[in-house]
């Protein structure tokens, strides 16, 4: 069914590993991103990494360090500045400021610096084995931290007041979550790029919440969708030679539309039998 290179070529093996890890991480972090209505943050944080990359090129250090510093720093700043109501404004301004700083670094660099742009795209077919190891370790750390924060974070996302009244250090929990988002971006962007990082954070959970409302099921479903999306994209990308990013976002969109129509259908049946629906 599949030509053998799909699973045996070293770069494809690396792509499967890296892609799967990133898909798992993004699906779980994405659950909370959607829960907290932070789609914009998920878009911003990976992009803020660009400025870090540009800065690293300017200072002649490893772009990955720049990326990590700016992604985590940007996430923390958003967490610090953003209140619940005006979160989007703070996020937008942080994004703009980060990109502006990127422009400065690019502008001051004398040499060819478009490697900073390359950071935004990532290279799923160019993942080294060292990168696999770092990705694995950092993903594990992120997932453990997320598991540790799980219940308080969930409660704080539902109602800050209740969480505070229960003695949860809400501010601290939220900041930790922002660090997790920043780290996720720093892990994911070099593997699949800023665009896919964003798609994977938002897409699978957005699809899942249309199908079920139980937290656990949403998480399980989005994990499934996320991993499936990446795998399918890898297969399609391998045979067509088209960019994997395109497939990930298009599969995400198709899943989303499908889920929406399922929901619409269910809604109509529910209207006919109102008491059996739930």
């Amino acid at each position: 069914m599949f030509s053998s290179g799909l699973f045996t070529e070293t770069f494809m093996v690396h792509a499967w590993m890296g892609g799967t890890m990133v898909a798992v991480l993004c699906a779980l972090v994405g659950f909370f991103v959607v829960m907290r209505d932070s789609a914009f943050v998920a878009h911003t944080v990976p992009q803020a990494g660009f400025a870090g990359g540009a800065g690293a090129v300017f200072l002649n250090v490893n772009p990955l360090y720049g990326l990590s510093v700016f992604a985590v720093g940007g996430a923390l700043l958003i967490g610090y500045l953003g209140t619940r109501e005006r979160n989007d404004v703070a996020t937008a301004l942080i994004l703009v400021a980060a990109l502006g700083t990127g422009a400065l670094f690019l502008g001051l660099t004398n040499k060819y610096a478009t490697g900073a742009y390359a950071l935004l795209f990532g290279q799923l077919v160019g993942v080294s084995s060292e990168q696999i190891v770092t990705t694995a370790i950092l993903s594990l750390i992120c997932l453990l931290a997320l598991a540790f924060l799980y219940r308080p974070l969930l409660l704080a996302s539902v109602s800050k007041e209740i969480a505070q009244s229960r003695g949860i250090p809400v501010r601290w929990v939220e900041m930790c979550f922002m660090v997790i988002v920043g780290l996720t971006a720093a892990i994911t962007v070099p593997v699949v790029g800023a665009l896919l990082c964003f798609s994977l954070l938002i897409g699978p959970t957005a699809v899942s919440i249309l199908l079920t409302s139980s937290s656990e099921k949403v998480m399980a479903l989005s994990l499934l969708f996320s991993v499936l999306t990446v795998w399918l994209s890898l297969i399609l990308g391998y045979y067509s030679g088209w960019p994997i990013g395109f497939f990930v976002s298009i599969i995400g969109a198709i899943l989303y539309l499908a889920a929406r129509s399922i929901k619409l259908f269910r809604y109509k049946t529910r209207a006919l039998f109102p008491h059996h629906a739930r």
Partner: protein
Amino acid sequence: MMDWAAGKDDPVLALDNISVQFDKRCVLKNVNIRVYPGEFIGLIGSNGAGKSTLLKVILGLLSPTQGTVQVGGPADGKGERLMGYVPQKLFLAPDIPLRGRDLVALGLDGHRWGIPLFSKERKRRVSEILEAVDAARYADAPVGQLSGGEQQRLLIAQALLTDPQILLLDEPLSNLDIKSAYEVIQLVSRIGREKGIAVILVAHDMNPLLGVMDRVVYLADGKALMGQIPDVFRSDVLSDLYGYPVEVLNVQGRIMVVGGRNFENNGYPREAICCESNEVL
């Protein structure tokens, strides 16, 4: 109504001489409140009277400038654990991935670190409490799509699962229609009585509470008065509290609190609270 003071020497909540000052403005002045197990207390006051500040003090989210707060027995330091809190309203997107059941379960262990482990006990307690608040019907629907009254019930169930000695409800009635408001009050008072939980219910309108309240805390201008309804709603007492003449009128079996001096203000009283009651005071 139950006899609130009989045989219960230890208050479950004691506020002594609480004052809160922001800059130079006094928001609360020497407030003294004692709440005993099983009581239903209405915390009544108009906007700006200091209700939310008092609430924050009780919850331990705000330390008062002066005075002491004691929750539970005298030696118990873990105030917040003994307090079930029901916020005014949830601000949730309609598609938030959370069922009513999940929300209620957070009452059980939402403050603990780590992932919840599946246990039958946990499931049983959640189902039990959902039955108790009569919310089992919509427990599997997304929280964001429920009505205000339905959300309110879930929040109450959530708060009850913390095994509180005090249930604190912040203006639960302000977003509800008359029928839901009535149901929520009945529910809370029934559960409070059954389990011996003290209920503090914040409201700016005391009408719906009159049948179930044991005592009332009346807040005006940062000052608080606590007592039974006939003791508080007296012209001399309230005049003293407001610092200007107020009259409590009994019109056809109803109580009206009418601001005295300001009748010249277009013929309307500046502040009037109209109380309805079956009891003749």
